[in-house]
Structure formats: structure tokens, C-alpha cells
């Protein structure tokens, strides 16, 4: 209904927004807002292309800014993956410690009920963990710096 839409616009530009009962008409304001937003964005893109000047390039200008000094190395350097490894091992052993917390919380209570098996179960679990721990240790995964540094 074009007449209704026109009436809605006059309402927005006029005084009484309250009188609009049609729900669709309430979105005219949102539509106008979107139009303004799109218009501003397009205007900001179009105006510089008309009025602006093309960038002047030069090798110095296109090089990285290092406070006026020539950059010594590349910005993307290679670094050790040790942090990733240690972080992953931490998560592994951390979750295992969480299992121990529950075990320790009920330890005294269950020691009276099922006796030494309570201790043995925990010991077996710990033993399995320790095998993995010693393996990591021997492999040097916990050393922050590698023992043999090979410069190619």
C-alpha cells in the first residue's frame, strides 16, 4: 500500500510516532537508519576516489617502520614449539591430578570399607602415570631449551 507507506514516512518526519499501529510501518524508521548508514559508508568510499589522490609509493615507504632504522630481520621469525609441547603435557597431567583429587577426598572413608584395595587402585593409576611422566622426562620434553642445538 503506497499510501500507507507515505503516511508512515510523514509520521516519522512529523510528530506522532505513537499513532502508527501497523507493525510494518514501525520498521520504516529502521529502514531509514539503514539507508543513512549505507549512504554514509558508500559516500566515504566514493568521495576519496573522486577527490583523493593515488598513493605515492617508494621502496623506503613500503618498507616496515622500525623507528627510522633499516629492519635487521624478517618480522616472521621461526621459534621453538617447546611452549606448545609443555602446554599440552601440562593439560594431560593436570587432568590426571584432577582424578586424584576425588580419590583423596574419599580415601579415609573407603579405606575402612574396602581396605588396602583403595590404596592399591590409586597406586596402579599413579604407576601408569609415572611411566608416561618418566618417558616425557627422558625424551627431554620438559626441558625448556633443547640439549642439542643444530645450526643449519
Amino acid at each position, binding site marked *: 500500500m503506497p499510501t500507507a507507506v507515505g503516511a508512515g514516512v510523514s509520521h516519522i518526519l512529523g510528530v506522532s510516532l505513537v499513532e502508527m499501529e501497523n507493525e510494518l510501518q514501525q520498521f520504516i524508521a529502521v529502514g531509514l537508519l539503514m539507508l543513512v548508514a549505507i549512504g554514509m559508508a558508500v559516500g566515504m568510499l566514493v568521495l576519496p576516489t573522486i*577527490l583523493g589522490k593515488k598513493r*605515492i609509493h617508494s621502496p623506503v615507504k613500503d618498507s616496515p617502520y622500525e623507528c*627510522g632504522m633499516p629492519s635487521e630481520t624478517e618480522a616472521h621469525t621461526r621459534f621453538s614449539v617447546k611452549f606448545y609441547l609443555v602446554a599440552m603435557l601440562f593439560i594431560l597431567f593436570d587432568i590426571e591430578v584432577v582424578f586424584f583429587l576425588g580419590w583423596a577426598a574419599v580415601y579415609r572413608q573407603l579405606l575402612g570399607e574396602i581396605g588396602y584395595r583403595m590404596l592399591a587402585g590409586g597406586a596402579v593409576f599413579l604407576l601408569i602415570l609415572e611411566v608416561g611422566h618418566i618417558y616425557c622426562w627422558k625424551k627431554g620434553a620438559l626441558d625448556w631449551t633443547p640439549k642439542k642445538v643444530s645450526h643449519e
Partner: protein
Amino acid sequence: MSERIEIGIDQKVEGRDVIITRVDAAIDWMRKNSIWPMPMGLACCGIELMAAGASRFDIARFGAEVMRFSPRQSDLMIVAGTCVYKMAGVVKRVWDQMAEPKWCMAMGACASTGGMYRSYAVVQGVDQFMPVDVYISGCPPRPEAVLEGLMAIQRQIQQEPALKNMKREQRAASYAQPRGPIIIRGDYAPKVTAQ
């Protein structure tokens, strides 16, 4: 000097709240009121430059308070202080990395001429390796002199053809030439009378 200022209250349409102007005058007007300086504080003049930026002298009144420590975002290089040969390469490199349009102000005797350092280590004026638009005398200049230099650059900007159709190489060459040069000799030192 021909005045090309075509924006302001004298362009007001009679009886209306409308100011008419030309597009390039409007662009120049926006440019000159939003100069972002690159503070190349090399020596003691840098302290006076800081004073010019602080509240008593308040460079923000001229729209130039946004000190940018990156050449990508700055319009005006203020070389404040003694430029030794070791630093000259750095100054030149930062200047070359600044985007056009750009302006340069040599603040103080050292940056302008080498000052009292007539020595093998000091560049006798930064205009030996880069274009300088405004020279400010003084050792160091008062902050008011810096502001006067800034206003001189603003007048210069207002007269520049912002929309002139030039090839990129021509434009680069035009920016490599100093505009002016404008020399600020304002005596702003407080007067001391001998008793």
C-alpha cells in the same frame, strides 16, 4: 603573497546559515586544521615542543595536538633539535616513509642551520637532505614561535591546489620541493629590564 583563502565567514550567504566555497578550498581547510605532527625531538628543542603541546600553550587550539609516532599517520615533521650525521639517516628515512601530503618544520637554530655546533658531527641544517617549509629561529624557540610556525604552515596549506591534476611522479617531485621557505623570527622572550 596572493591570498587564496576562500573559506570562512566572509563567504557566508547573506541572510542564511550557509557558507559557499570551492571543493579544494574546503579540503585545504580540513587539512590545515588537522595537522598531525611527527615529533622528531632530537635534542633540547623537544622539551619546548612538549611545552607547546601542553596546556599552557595548547597546540590543540590549532588542531595539531595529535602527536603521531608513526610516519604512516603524520602530516608534519617537526625536527626539534641538533641533527647529527648518525641521526640524519634516521630522520630522512622517517621523512621518506611519511605519506603525502607532508610538511616539515625545522625548529630551532640547530635543525635550521646547525646552530652553535659548527662541528664535523652535526648536519648544518636538515634542509641539506630534506625539504624544509618553515624555519624557526631561537635556541630554543619559545612555544609561541612554534605556534607561529604552525600557523604559517596552515596559511601555506590553505593556498595549495589540493585537487590539481598531476601525474604521480610530478606530485612526488612537488612534495620534494620546499614550499616557502618561511622563516619565523618572532621574539617571544619575556622582556627583562635591568634595575
